[in-house]
């Protein structure tokens, strides 16, 4: 299976970034500019979140962005169009659609996956589409559509569930980590570090880690541990308070 996620990670030197945009926030044109800027700064993995009214796994920043996008009338169709345009323009970037179970369910899972693939996406992140529900076991179907099912776990995810997830996951496995705050800088908590080490051995898959990364230091702390650092709400916060220039500076600093 030819897939940009595999390509982005196969020839990767050091830790890669996976960034996040909420389609339609602040609007679709700024999304396009933001994605171009990310690609220019060497980001090879970009999540496009299809906004949803009830985003169960998102914190306040991304939740508000979802609502603001919906208030402007953004639909899944706009998100597919955004991805299609940008994936043609930036053929080396791996785009992943992130959203919640009801969006593919309303469209029909097969139709959703076909559209995601047609618009140039390489993977799906669907945190509440549980693999242990009969219609949530979408990993095989995703692969048939040329999409990696990127499953989201946490250090509490242990065997036997972890084994079941590993048997389904491909391309990239996404885990959350906990951070302990010590003095001025944040440090990774040891449980999280051990978890990712073991996971890397066990999974045989690239590991993406996210924990509210908000500084280039955080990214460097993950280097050598995880393959990918996920940066979500921090980019929205930067954009809201200081504009695209601040996002650009931040990504440049992460790449140093």
């Amino acid at each position, binding site marked *: 299976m030819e897939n940009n996620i595999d390509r982005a990670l196969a020839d990767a030197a050091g830790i890669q970034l996976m960034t996040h945009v909420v389609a339609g926030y602040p609007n679709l044109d700024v999304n396009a500019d933001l994605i171009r800027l990310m690609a220019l700064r060497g980001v090879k993995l970009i999540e496009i979140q299809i906004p*949803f*009214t*009830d*985003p*169960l*796994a998102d*914190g*306040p920043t991304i*939740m*508000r962005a979802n*609502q603001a996008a*919906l208030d402007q009338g953004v*639909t*899944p169709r706009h998100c597919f169009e955004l991805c299609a345009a940008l994936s043609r323009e930036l053929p080396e970037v791996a785009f992943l659609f992130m959203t*919640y*179970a*009801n*969006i593919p*369910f*309303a*469209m029909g899972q097969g139709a959703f996956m076909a559209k995601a693939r047609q618009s140039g996406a390489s993977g799906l992140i669907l*945190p*509440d*589409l*549980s693999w*242990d*529900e009969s219609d*949530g076991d979408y990993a095989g179907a995703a692969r048939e559509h040329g999409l990696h099912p990127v*499953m*989201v*776990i*946490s250090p*509490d*995810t242990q065997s*036997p*569930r972890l084994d079941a*997830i590993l048997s389904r996951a491909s391309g990239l496995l996404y885990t*959350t980590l906990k951070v302990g705050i010590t003095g001025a800088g944040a440090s990774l908590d040891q449980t999280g570090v051990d978890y990712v080490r073991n996971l890397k051995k066990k999974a045989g898959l690239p590991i993406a880690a996210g924990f509210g990364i908000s500084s280039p230091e955080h990214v460097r702390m993950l280097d050598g541990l995880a393959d990918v650092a996920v940066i979500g709400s921090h980019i929205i916060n930067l954009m809201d308070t200081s504009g695209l220039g601040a996002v650009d500076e931040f990504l440049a600093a992460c790449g140093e």
Partner: protein
Amino acid sequence: MSRISDMLPRHFGPYGGRYVPEMLVPALEELEQGYLKYKDDPEFTAELTDLYQNYCGRPTPLYYAENLTRELGGCKIYLKLEGLAHTGAHKINNALGQALLAKRLGKTKVIAETGAGQHGLASATVAARFGLECKVFMGEVDVRRQYPNVYAMKLLGAEVVPVTDGTRTLKDAVNATLKYWIQNLKNTHYILGSALGPFPYPVMVRDFQSVIGREARAQIMEREGRLPSHLVACVGGGSNSIGLFHPFLNDPGIRFHGAEAGGRGPAIGDNAARFGGSPKIGIVQGYKSYFLQDESGQLQNTHSVSAGLDYAGVGPELAWLYDQNIVEFSPITDVKALDAFKRMTRLEGIIPALESSHAVARAIELAPTLPKDEIMIVNISGRGDKDIFITAMELDRENWIAFLENEVRHGK
């Protein structure tokens, strides 16, 4: 997976299930195993029964509504008076059961969502009783329209957290509570207030609420020596209705009626009638069921004069009973509910909650069409004191505003 977990239904037909981010699964599995362990444990059930009797005032009366029956001229109408339970509504049945379970699971904190405030009030009450720390998440819109309950929760020692996301009503309070739980799993139990959400909540809440139907069944057999032919309840998420209905589901020849919020009318956003137009299935808030949603799968805004019915989803077991034509749902408009509220108050000296007034309105539609020898039980799920700010504004506006102004002016 242990074999014992097969005893709790995870699905109702195609509905229900557990559609949640993986990080929530360990907590739900712990709850599932804990509930399995204690639900038939003699000490647990004895403690719960004792609290039901001596703390809640159970059994609640099954009252023959003679005047209403005479005026409508149809079947005999009995009222199950859940409003006489401690804290004024059926919500305490479930809150007590879950608090007892939380204690046994070693939890020190409880969290809850609330719409009308009745479940929040019940949760704050049991938290006070069992020495548990309590946070109640409540949509900002509901905080405004149900302030008397907010005050009571604070009085009981709970922290009330206004939810400012989305539509700022019940569904957003559920999201906020689930998110808080994800971040505080270790010592916290989530007392979910309705028979919905991810497994095992739908079955656990139904079981705790089934005390309503078990009592009603015994009471009607004692009074009439036979079963009713019609059961009526209002349906928001559906906990009072499934609690009344469930113990009767295996009896032949009973019709089950659910009264939904018809709101201002059938237009999108004006009601919470999930079964009103062309019902649509979805996967939201951890479970599969019918949801009011647009063609993309976005939940729609809802409206009801009663905060407790103002919710876009419905419990998965009720969804399955709807598919099988066992429960029939009807939308009741705000206007009809308020009419029923007035009629019940005047005829029987019982002030029902606005939620329950929807059930009364459905009973008023049905009873005249039914033979005199048939029996109907209507669940008066709560009493109407909490709605005084809404009903007074609707029914006695000028005097009420004058009173409020006077209170503000001279209250200090």
